[in-house]
């Protein structure tokens, strides 16, 4: 259940295990899934939806006072399985993922329940989120905007235009999560693009308040956000593992795109079941 106090880490661990299995299930329906990028950010997205986003008490169906953008749109399976769990999306929606009968694609699309902006082209989400946060700030409605970024999209100049403006506009109601899994679609960033690092220092130097945590440690992620000052835009730099939870996917670039075979799927599910026992 949704809680804003005393984030239940054990429950989060159970949820994320089930979400991982659900993501792998979907990978057996179509070949259009980005598995590993969803697995790396999963705990942080879980914290957003189950710990940070405030449900609108006046709404008949679940909706939130706060906003969330999946700027790394290719990680949207993490968002979809959570929205399914919350009842915002249906099982049928996920069963029809990437099919003509469905409404969910491999990138989030504005207008779909629970999806607040169309993302997927990288380097867009932070700017849009900054605009949303600024509008909320000057309209005084107390909303917060959460946004999930990939480290790969921080190679886009537009991300840094947004970093500067968010700090200039002092949007203390903007909270970003950086899924620092060190992989783009092709290779490790630390090898192919070493000047990207140190990223944490760059974030701070651009006028943001930031903390670096283990991005799979839900408690650390939650505590970091709760402890922010609220005076500046805030970023959780979450060190993560691409393909987290499935041994043969972890840190292997090909799983950015690839869908597992039946045998690989069986092995992955077995691993995720073992962890739960």
């Amino acid at each position, binding site marked *: 259940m949704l809680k804003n106090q005393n984030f239940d880490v054990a429950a989060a661990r159970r949820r994320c295990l089930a979400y991982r299995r659900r993501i792998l299930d979907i990978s057996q329906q179509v070949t259009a899934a980005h598995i590993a990028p969803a697995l790396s950010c999963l705990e942080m997205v879980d914290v957003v939806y189950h710990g940070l986003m405030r449900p609108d008490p006046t709404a008949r169906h679940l909706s939130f006072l706060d906003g969330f953008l999946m700027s790394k749109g290719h990680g949207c399976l993490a968002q979809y399985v959570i929205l399914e769990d919350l009842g915002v999306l249906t099982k049928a929606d996920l069963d029809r993922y990437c099919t003509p009968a469905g409404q969910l694609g491999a990138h989030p699309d*504005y207008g779909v329940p629970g999806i*607040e*902006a*169309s993302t997927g*082209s990288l*380097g*867009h989400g*932070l*700017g*849009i*989120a*900054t*605009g*949303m*946060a*600024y*509008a*909320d700030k*000057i*309209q005084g409605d107390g*909303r917060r905007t959460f946004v999930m970024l990939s480290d790969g999209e921080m190679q886009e*100049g*537009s991300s840094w*235009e*947004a970093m*500067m*403006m968010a700090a200039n*506009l002092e949007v203390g109601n903007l909270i970003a999560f950086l899924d620092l899994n060190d992989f783009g679609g092709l290779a490790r960033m630390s090898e192919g693009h070493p000047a990207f690092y140190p990223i944490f220092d760059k974030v701070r130097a651009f006028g943001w308040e930031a903390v670096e945590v283990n991005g799979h440690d839900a408690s650390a992620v939650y505590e970091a956000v709760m402890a922010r000052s609220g005076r500046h835009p805030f970023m959780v730099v979450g060190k993560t593992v691409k393909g987290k939870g499935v041994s043969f996917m972890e840190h292997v670039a090909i799983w950015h795109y690839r869908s597992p075979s039946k045998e690989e799927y069986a092995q992955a599910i077995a691993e995720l079941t073992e962890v739960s026992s």
Partner: protein
Amino acid sequence: MRNTFAQTFYEAAKRDKRLTVVVADISPAGSMQKFREEFPERFINTGVSEQIMIGLCAGMALRGLRPFAYTIATFTIFRPFEFVRDDICYQNLPVTLVGIGGGVTYSTLGGTHHAMEDVAVAGAIPNMSIIAPCDPAETRAATLWCVEQTRGPVYLRLGKAGEPDLTSNAADAWEFGRLRYLRKGSDVCILSYGPIMKMVFGLAERFERAGKSASVVSAHTLKPLDRAGIAATLAAHEHVVVIEECVPRGGLAGQVKGIAWEQGAACRLDSFTLQDEFIHRYGSYADLLAAHGLDVETISAKLGLA
């Protein structure tokens, strides 16, 4: 046009607190400065950062504000093109993208600052509307429409400053999506839009001197184009001339020819556009237009007018 836009926007913004402006390091002309001083929270300068200018507008529109992005046309459309496409048009948000200096208005700044393809490029994007007023009064009417509209994205293509009044005696009122007869003739019709309209009136005089009664039409709304109005114009005149400050592909001229083909128009049809060429030339706005063959003498000669 700049000052008229600013004054009109300022008046509207006093009534509607949702109206906001995001500029990218462009000096706020005329009343934009008053707006900035009175409503500092609703005026954002992103500096030389056009992608975030568009991204901010998208985010603010998603939260119920009515943002206007405002800078030189090349930097409104070309530099942040994919942000215009994805953030604004794909999501069909009611954001007005104001481009100052459409066409070759910035005649001394060189080709980097000429928005020769802006209408073609903006018009290629689904959901986008395009309005290109020809004088200050049309700029005012178009701006008033933009601040009210809920249709979706608009590219408002303006000139610069000092444009003469061309429409105070217009036959028709300004209406979004409708051709506007600025003067009615019976033989020839010149279809055009934007600040080049001043030259168009000079050409109309040449037709009159040659004994041809000339209509002048402002096709201010380039998208959605008034196809029925163009069809009627093609049917009502023996000769139609399209003059536009845009590259040959993707602008008004090709569309008028398409409509003429579809309806089997019997009239003579000529078009004069910017050249499909970067011309390395500096001078007055008229000098730049002339370098592209868009001056009364060149066009008159090509049309066989004395």
